């Protein structure tokens, strides 16, 4: 498959991405839902200020892996995680760790836009208020403006901050959810198929946004769309049947993958 130009391939190689420091390290991560095993000893690293895309057919475990990164799997009763995941060297499954603080450092954006049934302003201030990030109303106002700016939503909503967040369009709602996650100043943002419920124009905006967010945040994104993975990510990891098949630079992955299964999936032979 030759969807990348020669120049792009060279550029990717020039970036020497292997020198980027690691933000999160997953070692022998396995996940069980009751008796059923969903992930098999996954070793996957997340690089700082990089967009890492997780791809693979439905039910391959990519979303499950994503949710282990901020322990959202804890909310499912039957779920059990083994192995080790570190954030800046600290084990996030350490019994002494504060899950709430972890989730403040590793934020999440979900598949379906899920703004709270509150005003746009309150949606953005929700996290900062809980974590005590702002002392005064002015601080909050500033956080709201900055977050909405970063999410590319400010110009569209600045005149109606106190209207309900659920009244926005689907794409705007998703960017509001990103602004909400950004407002807590996380280090990592996890995105679980953030564009699957959006139309192409809204998708383009969110993708553009992901590109910009990369400068400040480390991003892990699960996507069903190969094109999206190619467009937004620098690293790509391919999952299949609960196993990590291949992890590579995105450019290499989509031009010359190491594994036959990756090749087949990208060519649309299964999935």
């Amino acid at each position: 498959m030759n969807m990348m130009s020669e120049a792009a391939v060279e550029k990717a190689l020039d970036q020497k991405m292997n020198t980027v420091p690691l933000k999160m390290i997953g070692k022998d991560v396995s996940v069980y839902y009751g008796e059923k095993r969903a992930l098999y000893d996954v070793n996957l690293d997340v690089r700082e200020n990089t967009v890492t895309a997780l791809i693979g057919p439905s039910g391959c475990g990519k979303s499950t892996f994503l949710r282990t990164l901020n322990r959202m799997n804890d909310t499912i009763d039957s779920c059990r995680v083994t192995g080790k995941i570190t954030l800046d060297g600290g084990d996030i499954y350490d019994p002494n760790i504060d899950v709430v603080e972890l989730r403040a450092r590793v934020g999440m954006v979900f598949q379906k836009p899920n703004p709270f049934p509150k005003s746009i302003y309150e949606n953005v201030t929700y996290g900062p208020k809980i974590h005590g990030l702002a002392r005064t109303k002015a601080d909050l106002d500033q956080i709201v403006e900055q977050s909405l700016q970063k999410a590319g939503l400010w110009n569209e909503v600045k005149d109606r901050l106190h209207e309900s967040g659920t009244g926005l369009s689907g794409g705007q709602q998703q960017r509001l959810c990103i602004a909400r996650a950004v407002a807590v100043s996380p280090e990592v943002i996890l995105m679980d198929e953030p564009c699957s419920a959006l139309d192409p124009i809204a998708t383009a905006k969110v993708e553009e946004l992901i590109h910009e967010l990369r400068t400040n945040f480390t991003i892990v994104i699960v996507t069903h769309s190969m094109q999206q993975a190619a467009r937004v990510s620098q690293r790509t990891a391919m999952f299949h049947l609960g196993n990590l098949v291949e992890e590579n630079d995105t450019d290499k992955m989509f031009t010359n993958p190491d594994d036959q299964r990756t090749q087949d999936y990208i060519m649309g032979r299964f999935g």
Partner: protein
Amino acid sequence: MSTSLILLVILIVGLAAYFAGRARAMASSNGKLSALHSLPGYHGVYVAIWSVLPAAVILALWLIASPFFVENATRNSLPEDVRNQGGATTELMLGQVMQVANGLRLLNADEMAAVTGDPAVLRDTLAAKGVPMANAGEAYMVTSAKTYNSMKDTSRWAMSAVVLLIAIAGAVFAIRGITAPFRARNRVERVMLGALLLASSIAILTTVGIVGSMLSEAIRFFQSVSPSAFFFGTVWDPRFSAAGSGGTEGQFGLLPLLAGTLYIAFVAMLFAVPVGLFAAIYMAEYAKPAVRGIAKPLLEILAGIPTIVYGFFALITVGPFLRDMSAQLNGLVTGNYVNFIQAQSVLTAGLVMGIMLIPFVSSLSDDIITQVPRSLRDGSLGLGATRSETIKRVILPAALPGIVGALLLTASRAVGETMIVVLAAGVAARMQLNPFEAMTTVTVKIVNQLTGDLEFNSPQTLVAFALGITLFAITLCLNIYALYIVRKYREQYE
């Protein structure tokens, strides 16, 4: 033929019509079922409906209408002098004649001849058959009674014949209409729709009828007691409506009862809302499925206990316990062992009513909380909120309209609750603020005013209808307000 026999015959005709219709449909399909628009069964049902429904309707109408005609004719057959004595006497005599008519049916030919010849023996003869007569027999009674009987018989025969004829005619008409492309299925559907419509309109009309009758009785009450004295009166002292006590007008002040009702409901809600709501939150958010599976049905058993049981629980257990406890407390503090809580008090009634209401609050709220989408929970948890922060800041606000609706529904139950307050609140109609003293409620007074031998013409009994309509208006307003709030919040949150 008796009415039930006629009904049976109609049903048999209907059954026969069903099979005839089926057979006709089968025949017209020429052995190919797919040639039929509707399955043979539908054709059968269609024919059966045509034979049973019109016949049954005519039967019902006839049964309702014929007594009017027969009685009217009998009334006209009474002698001039009887009819000239005025309406009441005529009706009395008519009743007498109908009594005689029933009695005559029990007589054999000899006795009949004797009675016809000498009306004086009528009374004794009928008494021997177990039919009492108020007046002495007279000649016109026997003739009128005979007319009455013969007319009744004729009517009955005519009815049997007509109804049977209509049943058969309906079946024949329907069978003749059956062809392969005939849309029997759609016709049957329409009859089903009609039946469902009838059922729901019966429910609605009953409500309208109840309100109408309450209103008319309440208006009768307000003819003897002025509405302002009722709605703004502060003294409840209806007196007894003893015979001949025309002059003793009671005082019918609503306010003490209303105050008691609202006060007790308030205390009950004060107790039920936090407990019920917290139980619901635990059930919906924290309880493991196994715990929830056991605890939720157990909690809902509380809702199944008849309120009279709560009533004597209050009367025998809670009331005396509170009374004794207050005496002990008072003794410990002041050395004077006098209870400051009455056994029958606002607190007792409110507490027990609150227990009764817990399952309503918790069950309704639980349903509403679990309906809040999981994505909202995930969104909040994903931002690093704790569970209780998520509940407080996201789930409860999102569920609020539903919860408010549930609470208002519960409040209208509390206002209308009767058996607990009858036993636990006492009957003293007072206006005061001490929750340890007895107060009474609207429902208790309705029960009081309607207990015993009554005639519905004195304000003492009619006041029950005025109280009832007031209570109805309150609960109606609560429900309308609940709907209003729910709609307002829904607009805001959607």
